């Protein structure tokens, strides 16, 4: 296996007046070159904070408390801010959910693409401009010579997100972190955007961390899945293992709570499976297994001790007392 990114026991906490919010609490993650890893979970489970931790841009009052993040053989957490700056946007880049917020409204699309090139590569302005136009053409933006002079507000939502992808992939990064890249887009546009992202990263051998709450997207695009719940990894494995042979009660519940078109001819009495209760507050995470208050198969030990990791099949692991 050709591992590009390896996260070991990452802990990122937010120190607020109300207490310590453990946003990421012991996450392990392994990313293979030119593969797509789906990081799924509900809002507030620590998906985005994991991503921000990789780039070391966790906002105040958040701090990376412990852990290691290896990019190839280098621990990113040991680098200086200057060395880190060499990596951001260059070897690891990120696409955010809302393209209107992440593109600078005061600069043209061209400015923003050219700046990224000029910071990291020794190229002339003219060369940078040509590369930028080429990249916009690759993300299927029509008339890129004209679009390059336009401001973000002049583009449609789908086009803005494609411009973001162009910017993120301009320097052929080793890793692309896509944080809910299509949530703000309509389904037909969503398919376009993901298709482009997939084709380009395959050409460049870029690995993707696809952060989403949409299990459908993960099933269609990812090769490997990590399921997060309340700042911890519950289950991880190859996409086939997770979608066809999920073992963790949370993963199972999540999969069963989504209506799929195969259920079309259901009986009238048949109800959608629901996971009872609510996601716990990060200030007050349950003892033992974090999922135990909502778990249907909860045992006595679940509320006492944290479950150990169990390997079901190669690569398919979960943290649950039922399988110990």
């Amino acid at each position, binding site marked *: 296996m050709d591992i590009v990114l390896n996260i070991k026991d990452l802990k990122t906490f937010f120190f607020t007046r109300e207490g310590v919010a453990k946003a990421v609490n012991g996450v392990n993650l392994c990313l293979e070159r030119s593969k797509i890893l789906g990081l799924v979970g509900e809002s507030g489970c620590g998906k985005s904070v994991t991503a921000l931790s990789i780039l070391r841009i966790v906002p105040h009052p958040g701090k990376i408390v412990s852990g290691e993040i290896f990019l190839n053989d280098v621990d990113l957490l040991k680098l200086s801010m200057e060395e880190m700056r060499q990596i951001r946007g260059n070897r690891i880049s990120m696409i955010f959910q809302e393209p209107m917020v992440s593109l600078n409204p005061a600069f043209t699309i061209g400015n923003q693409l050219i700046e990224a090139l000029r910071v990291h590569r020794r190229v002339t302005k003219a060369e940078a401009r040509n590369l930028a136009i080429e990249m916009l053409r690759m993300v299927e933006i029509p008339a890129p010579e004209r679009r390059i002079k336009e401001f973000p507000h002049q583009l449609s939502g789908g086009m803005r997100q494609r411009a973001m992808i162009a910017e993120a992939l301009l320097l052929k990064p080793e890793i692309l972190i896509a944080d809910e890249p299509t949530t703000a887009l309509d389904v037909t546009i969503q398919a376009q955007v993901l298709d482009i992202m997939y084709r380009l990263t395959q050409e460049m051998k870029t690995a993707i961390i696809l952060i989403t709450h949409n299990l459908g997207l993960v099933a269609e695009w990812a090769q490997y899945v990590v399921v997060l719940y309340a700042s911890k990894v519950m289950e991880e494995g190859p996409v086939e293992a997770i979608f066809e042979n999920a073992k963790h009660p949370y993963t199972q519940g999540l999969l069963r709570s*989504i209506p799929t*078109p195969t259920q079309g001819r*259901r009986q009238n009495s048949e109800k959608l499976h*629901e996971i009872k209760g609510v996601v716990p507050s990060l200030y007050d995470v349950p003892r033992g297994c974090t999922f135990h208050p909502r778990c249907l198969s909860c045992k006595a030990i679940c509320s006492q001790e944290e479950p150990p990791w169990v390997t079901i099949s190669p690569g398919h692991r979960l943290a649950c007392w039922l399988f110990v």
Partner: protein
Amino acid sequence: METLIKVENLKKYFPVKGFLKLHRESVRAVDGIELDIYQGETLGLVGESGSGKSTIGRCILRLLDPTEGQIRFRGQDITRMSQKGLRPLRKKMQVIFQDPYSSLNPRMTVSEIIGDGLKWNIGMGPNEKRDRILDTMRRVGLRPEQSNRYPHEFSGGQRQRIGIARAIAPNPEFVVADEPLSALDVSIQAQVVNLLEELKEEFRLSYLFISHDLSVVEYISDRIAVMYLGKIVELAEKEELYYNPKHPYTTSLLSAVPLPQIRKKRERIILKGDIPSPLHPPHGCRFHTRCFRSMEVCSQADPSWKDIGGGHYTACHLY
């Protein structure tokens, strides 16, 4: 089946002021639609953002005044009825909004919010009103002792329950659910879907369920209408629509939905380009600029709304 709501040739234009008010244009949010909602059914309305789904819902409730067309509620024309005249009907037609964070007044307690919905249930005494509020809270899964709390003390899913309680407290016949799930987490969405289904049975409600999530619409609806740029392009029973879609837009929309299963890798139809602006919709069929089966005639004539058998309607030159 008895028709509860009949919408004929509904149009809603929003004027946009041009430079120095020199020229006036309008956004054609809804541009001539026909729709019947039957007693006791859930009609799903799907489409992408800006296609006019919410505008239809709001016109039917007369929260917006239609530009043209006619809306009938149980045969009674309510298109031009005064706000005062509408009051007796208000309690029969309710709405659940998308965002439970902005649709609940933060300065009102839960019982005030639910009680506000009972404003036009004239002749209801204070005790009866209090009982109704508590009963409704219990019914949607809120505890009666929470009645004096404020919305910010609740989670998203519970807030949506407050919104639902407010809508069903007056004992309505018809509820517009405008994207009621999109602000909620996956594990909470299922709870709300089940609640809406139970309430429908119990109170014999009819829903207009507006959503962009095709899987949920398919699960909850009896019939589904698909919108594109201010027009309904297809309407059919849900099985018929999902297994036998006729309009190319419906076909591509269905193929674009990512499914949480890996066995079936489907043939995807990826549409080119973006949705045109509703300010200047394309001539002829509005979908022809992105359609993969576009013909000569599509750019010239607007296709008519046809019944192609068994209550399956579509507006497409192919049929």
